[in-house]
């Protein structure tokens, strides 16, 4: 865990040592807690607490005051000192309690294009009868906004993780922390939900004109579905429309097959990996991405053909997503292998 909050004790931070220690502690916590469900209620045994810089200064102050009180044998200074010590004690317990029982739930992450920030939405619900002030999510140096939860209230906190390359962005773990009541202590809990979000390739900025529409008749709009004449069955590919799945055949044989229609190619735009003129693979993918975005924006039908995948021309949110997803995972050696940035 690292924090962006600057403290009065910044000079004590030895970067290398801290990093090594952090990794060890994180591994230990992961081993101890295991993987969390997407909806997790925080139990007290997984909540950690340490004094903040302000807390250390506060401790030093009360210690000085104690010495002063002892020296002067001043019983009212003792009252003041011990009252502050008591406040410190109570605020430690209060700080830890402020997290216990919170319900943390993953509330989704929308796909983004590489270079954009993936916004992980995490809902925190306060089921208790008491207010929970000053809550915040964090991962590494990235933090959400700070918010308070009224009794029974649920609020979404956002963790915006920067992405740089296509594939996935992994949020292996994140923390929720609080400084309430006096910022003397910081208590936190780590959650290992193994979340991930999809990162489409970055859309290229200056792109060559996409290949022209292949419709000879000039009515590509309504005619472009390619569903006129049934031409046969082929094996189902990821990205094929569910409407084209031969469900009857599936019921019979248990094998997923897609219906193929002739004439599909006649009046639509095809974006083909091999036709893109670009220096490298990533550049090609970027250009394809841009073409898809532009075509989608104008509601045109488009098909995508890349090594390993072929998506018949269509349009709509689902089609766009399937195409971009295929581009995102293009050439990934193994689907399970972590591609993209891992945050923990």
């Amino acid at each position, binding site marked *: 865990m690292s924090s962006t909050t600057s403290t009065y004790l910044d000079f004590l931070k030895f970067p290398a040592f801290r990093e090594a220690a952090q990794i060890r502690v994180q591994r230990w916590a992961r081993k101890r807690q295991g993987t969390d469900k997407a909806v997790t209620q925080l139990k007290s045994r997984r909540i950690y607490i340490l004094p903040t810089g*302000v807390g250390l*200064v*506060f401790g030093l*102050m009360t210690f000085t*005051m104690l*010495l*002063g009180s*002892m*020296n*002067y*044998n*001043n*019983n*009212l*200074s*003792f*009252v*003041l*000192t*011990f*009252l*502050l*010590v*008591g*406040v410190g*004690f*109570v*605020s430690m*317990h*209060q700080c830890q*309690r402020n997290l*216990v*029982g919170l319900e943390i739930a993953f509330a989704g992450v929308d796909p983004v294009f590489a270079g954009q920030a993936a916004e992980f939405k995490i809902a925190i619900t306060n*089921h*208790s*009868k*008491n207010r929970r*002030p*000053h*809550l915040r999510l964090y991962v590494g140096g990235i933090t959400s*906004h*700070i*918010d*308070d939860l009224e*009794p*029974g209230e649920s609020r979404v906190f956002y963790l915006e993780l920067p992405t740089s390359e296509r594939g996935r962005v992994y949020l292996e773990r994140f923390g929720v922390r609080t*400084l*309430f*009541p*006096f*910022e003397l202590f910081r208590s936190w809990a780590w959650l290992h939900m193994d979340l991930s979000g999809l990162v489409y390739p970055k859309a290229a900025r200056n792109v060559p004109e996409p290949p022209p529409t292949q419709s000879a008749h000039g009515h590509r709009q309504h005619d472009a579905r390619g569903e006129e004449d049934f031409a046969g069955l082929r094996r189902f590919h990821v990205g094929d429309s569910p409407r084209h799945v031969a469900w009857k055949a599936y019921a019979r044989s248990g094998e997923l097959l897609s219906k193929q229609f002739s004439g599909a190619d006649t009046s639509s735009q095809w974006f083909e990996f091999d036709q893109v003129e670009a220096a490298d693979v990533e550049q090609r993918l970027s250009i394809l991405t841009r073409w898809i975005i532009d075509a989608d924006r104008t509601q045109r039908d488009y098909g995508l053909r890349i090594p390993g995948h072929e998506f018949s021309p269509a349009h709509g949110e689902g089609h766009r997503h399937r195409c971009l997803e295929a581009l995102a995972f293009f050439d990934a050696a193994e689907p399970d292998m972590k591609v993209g940035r891992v945050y923990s």
Partner: protein
Amino acid sequence: MSKRTGTDGSLLASLPWTLGALAFSVIPHLQYLPIWVTAIFLACSGWRLQVERKRWRLPPAWIRIVLSLMCFIGVLASYQSVSGVGPGSALLAVMAALKLLETRQRRDQFVLLFISIFLIMSSLLREQYLWSLPYLMTGVLFTMTAWLRMSEARRVSVGRSLKTGARLMAYSIPLMIAMWVFFPRIATPFWAVPIDTSSATSGLSDRMSPGDISSLSLSNAVAFRVKFTSNVPPPHERYWRGLVLHRFNGRTWTGNEPSRGSSARDAVEYLGDPVAYEITLEPTRQRWVFALEIPYEWDRNKRFFMAGQQQLAIIQPIDQRITYNAVSYPDFRLNNELQQFERNRYTRLPDDSNSRTVELARNMRKSAGSSEAYINQVLRKFNEEEFFYTLEPPPLGNNPVDRFLFDTKQGFCEHYASAFAVLMRAAGIPSRIVLGYQGGEINPMGQYMIVRQADAHAWNEVWLPRRGWYRVDPTGAVAPERIREGRSGAMFDGIGASWGLNAPSEFLYQLTMTWDALNAKWNEWILAYGPDNQGKFMEWLGMQKPDWRKMMLTLVAIVVLLTAIISVMLIMRYRPPAKDEAARLYRKFTGAAGLEPEMGETPFSYFARLIIERSEITTEADDITSLYLDVRYGPPELASVKALQTAVSEFPRQRQ
């Protein structure tokens, strides 16, 4: 540079509170702070608030540095020192003011709140009155509330912050009490406690120049309180002996610094029945300790000693309230033999001053025959001639005794004591002046005696062969009521009426006495809780041979226990509402209604069925049904569960 941009107004929610807490902490210092410090503090606070409101800019660094230097030099110039409570608190106030000039972020306010706490602390080092306790509690509450407001994410109402602050403080009070009681007190300080001369208390001075001051201010401040364990002596025997003055330069009487007299106590012969008592002496910043006449016994462990002239003294100036026990005898005999050098010392008068008095004394002595007769004659002179007791005598000039005896004939105890001593010495009778207190007023609320600064008194001791030293009080010859009733009860020339027995009304009298009794208890139970009292209290609690280890162990045990209790209380506060409270309440309702709902029946259809059978409960059943549906399907709100609870609990009662 971002430094030079205006403020963004983000501190508006917390800054007024931080300033309020600071100002509250400064209040007890106001009467001691140099006026310029207060002015700078107020100016910076008001200005900083305005900066935040109007989004002005903060001053550049060089202005702050110059100001800081000037303030530091200013404090140094005002106090000639930077250590001690006075300059310390002035520095804190100045630091707070200057820190305000660079308070840019929310977190900068931490420093201000730390200063606020230190200001409260330093005010306690200076004075610990009864109201200091509620004051420090309120100060901490304000500081904590400001602290909370600084760290709240959303804007919350002031009431809410105060409530949270008060709740957290309420949790910590039991912890505070436990630590306060059991934390081992030590007798010897780690470092020398600097004596703060800036707040000198009124008290006896160690010199006396009658005629220099033309009016004596009557302070009702308490000098000490006395608890008698034996009979209370009658008013005319309440002579609290303090210091002895024997050196006279014609105008001023002075004495010796207290030093241990080798056999001072052996020279005393104690007569009569002993009086045992306990005195709680307010700090005097002097080394004199007061006792009834010449004490026979006193606390051996208090580092007291008896000085050469039978005065009780302590080795260090008294800058904290002390309590001690002593036993005295109402009458004593002292120094039956006087050495020649002593005789000289106590009969010495400066040449060519107060010559008329000297001449008068010689004549009177000759005609009187014996020393005893002479003394009586002098006293009779005071009594029968036109001498007046007044607290506002005219000034006396160069030969004060002459002028007093022959011209003005007005004065208070110091004038009479001084004149009497000169008259004695001029006639060859050894005499000296004793400063102390005479009188004391019983507080019926607390069964103890209050001796006030207004009871300060001066009297004489004269030495006669075969009789030794004995007390003569010439003031008693002029104003016997002063001695009989004590100053508080006396009215001299219409002035000098003070509180106490002459308080304007019975109610006010009761009030002052109750207040004083409370203060006495406060001193006894809270402020005097040192190593001795703690040990006694621990023994009373049942601890055998208390030492610091046992106390620390008890402390830790109690703190652990209290922490566990606080933890449970917090768990209760944060527990979720019972899982299906609504369903339970609804079942209770159907049970009370006496009609079993059918399987799968909705609350509405149940309601419809119920009112056909029992139309008299339509309103209540309707209320409960809609409340139940609210809880079930509405937004999760505790208020609606509570409403359902009340409705259901009132339901059966309404049936009957």
